[in-house]
């Protein structure tokens, strides 16, 4: 086992930690820092439950080795809002009942926030008709495509799309 000292910002708070070089950002959050809002669904980059914002961009934290995060700014679901003061996207998920078991939910919400920022920056998707529009066009079809990296097995997609649509300015 090789250990590394690491400094990074999680939800705007500086953390100085010693991590196993094999440890993912996901397990750093969950097992070392007890930030269990970020979920492990597949540990393999295939389900999206572990989605966090890494320097503002959505990533699967199970595919990021913690040691690569020196100086990085990580936002997890715990950094978005509190039960009394939810982030608007969290509130939209509540209002549209865009969740059931809740296990994919933090990843869906982080992903949705990251996705809206991608749209603002003009990042196209597989179904975009224009590769150059800034911001990119966002309709139901685009949301479905852009959110397809976040699996939900309860079958809440219909409500997830509605929740995100309600946040499209």
């Amino acid at each position, binding site marked *: *086992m090789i250990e590394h000292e690491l400094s990074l910002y999680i939800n705007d708070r500086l953390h100085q930690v010693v991590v*196993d070089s*094999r*440890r993912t950002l996901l*397990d750093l959050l*969950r*097992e070392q820092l*007890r930030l*269990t*809002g*970020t*979920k*492990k*669904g*597949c*540990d*393999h980059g*295939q*389900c999206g*439950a572990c989605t966090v914002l890494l320097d503002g961009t959505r990533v699967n934290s199970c595919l990021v080795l913690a040691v690569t995060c020196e100086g990085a700014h990580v936002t*997890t*679901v*715990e950094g*978005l*809002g*509190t*039960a009394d003061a*939810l982030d608007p996207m*969290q*509130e939209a*998920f*509540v209002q549209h*009942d865009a*969740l*059931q*078991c*809740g*296990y*994919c*939910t*933090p990843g869906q*919400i982080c992903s949705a926030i990251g996705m809206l920022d991608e749209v603002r920056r003009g990042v196209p998707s597989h179904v975009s008709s224009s590769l150059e529009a800034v911001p990119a066009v966002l309709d139901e079809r685009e*949301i*479905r*495509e852009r*959110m*397809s*990296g*976040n*699996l*939900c*097995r*309860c*079958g*809440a*997609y*219909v*409500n*997830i*799309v509605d929740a995100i649509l309600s946040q499209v300015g």
Partner: protein
Amino acid sequence: MSIQAPERLSFIGRDIERVDARLKVTGRATYAYEYPAEHVAYAYGIGAAVARGRITGIDSSAAQGVEGVIAVLDHTGAPRLGETNNRELLVFQSDRVSYRGQLIAAVIAESFETARDASQLVSVSYEQDEHDVVLTEDHPASFRPEHVAYRVPEVSVGDVETALAQAEITVDQAYATAAAHHMALEPHASLAIWEEDQLTVFESSQYAYEARDVIAKLFALGPEQVRVINGYVGGGFGSKGSPRPQMVIAAMASRVVGRPVKMALTRQQMFPVSGYRGPTVQRVRLGANRDGELTAFEHRAAAQTSRLHDFAEPCTTGTRTMYAAANRFDTHRLTRLDVPTPSFCRGPGEAPGFFAVESALDELAIASGVDPVELRIRNDTTRDPSTGHEYSTRNLVACLEEGARIYGWSRRRNQEAEGWRTGHGVASSMYPTYQMPSRAAIVAYPDGTFAVRLAAVDIGTGSRTALLQIAAEQLQVPLARVNVEIGDTSLPYAVGAFASLGTASWGHAVHLAGREMRQLLEGTDTIPPEGLRVEVDTAEEIQARPAKANAAFGAQFAQVSVRRHTGEVRVDRLVGVFAAGRIVNPRTTRSQLIGGMTWGISMALLEETALDPNLGEYVTSDLASFHFASCADIPRIEASWIEEDDADINPVGVKGVGEIGIVGTAAAIANAVFDATGVRVRSLPVRLDDLLGD
């Protein structure tokens, strides 16, 4: 019957926010693996590399030598376990391998990374036997099981052969459905903590008391020595209805190393170890007159199980309830193969069974020229055609008519535009209404608040919210004054969350407890500081129910587009109308129904866990190769219902909505594919190559 005063508080039927939604969207709902435990160790399982055989040697010395490894457990040194009726749970008790991927050893280490890393160093040798993993309709080893999901395997009424011989129209077709896995997003996980001879397990379980009793027997403990906590569960769909091997391993390892141990199945391990919907091969024979009125109805199903435990997918039991035909026969065959044990999976039996039956009905509609909605209405019945019992409520016809109206069935058109052909299909849905005894306690406190306590569980269904509404309605107090405490065997006994019986069973108990508490409070002046407590059991009332047939019904309408040159199928629209008793919460009910219908689309077009007959293994064992519906696969889904007032089923009038949404969906879609293309697909999932050819 009490007369409702105008100021009466009413919560049942109100659109109330899911009570744990805010916890879930902030990541503060705690699932089994996430409970803090001091000095916790991590277990990582190792799966067998052959499908059938014997372990001849396990060398774990290299793994044992890795810094941070605490122990390696396998059949040569593991503690002996007690009795169980499920041999899947007798982990590390034998050198026998019954399926590929069966957990045969585990590494316990200071960290997950070390445990996983060291597991690669464990070397296992096998004596491999020929395996048999392929289900066929007429497998020579098949047999009629003693029961299918607690019901008889076969029912015969009248004389099917004679009726078929005399029928003006017949349908005789074979149908098949693929193996598919539950794949709840939360992997099966257990955190076991021993304190002396007391064991606490935080468990991803749909049924805490069952898990408690099973684990107690395995470790020769009294039930009171085990506590199981399942406060939040990240989906189950049947796979978490009974304990899985990781629970036994966590408890065993914790006892061996003298520390809390936690273990989660990896996503890949979930394929062999956590159950699945087994493949089915079915045959349906229908006899009818020229008007489409059924005279004969036969449904035969073949399914597989493992060599460890018999589980028979109850494919034909739903058929017993569906349509009036004087002559009926249904039966099951089961074959034990060198495969993992299948299990209950959302809409067990009905989901694959209704694909066959509701496809066959569509074939009869085509053959008779009767509209498929009208055909189903014509064959409706007011009595269960197999038992003769009257239905407490049966609103299949109302669902078909209302669904047809919402969908615009009479105005449907086949279109072809830009290479896409559009078609429309319909199918009926049904799920039986079950109820099992449960207990519930309510405590009234001097500050005017109430605690509702029972070991129910909310696996995402919204039961926490529904029970709160039922309690507040009985107690006649605002929702904010009631706390619902569930998910823990330190609470009164409650049956698990399965078979759509949760809210019916628990709601009944909460309703009774609420009524008793209200009566108690009417004769009470002051509440002592520790509170006033009532506890009830529904067993007697359930026994005393009238002998009637109880089921929820529904109808689903699908529009699909099929791309002529590629065979790609898209579901454009899915409409479902259901009659499922009293709806406690429209918001969570709609979510449940849409969830089931989403599963139905997924089953129709995507889900198949592919078996490699040579390896004897389900090889599409991750979420990139076993596909279930993603956001891009799901269109707008419209779910609605016809409210029923059914006092015969339980005092709340709840039938349950967890399963019915998936029942019939795949047939509606396959029927729409036929309508679009003229190709009848009788094997799920519908594949591109089924539809190529012109």
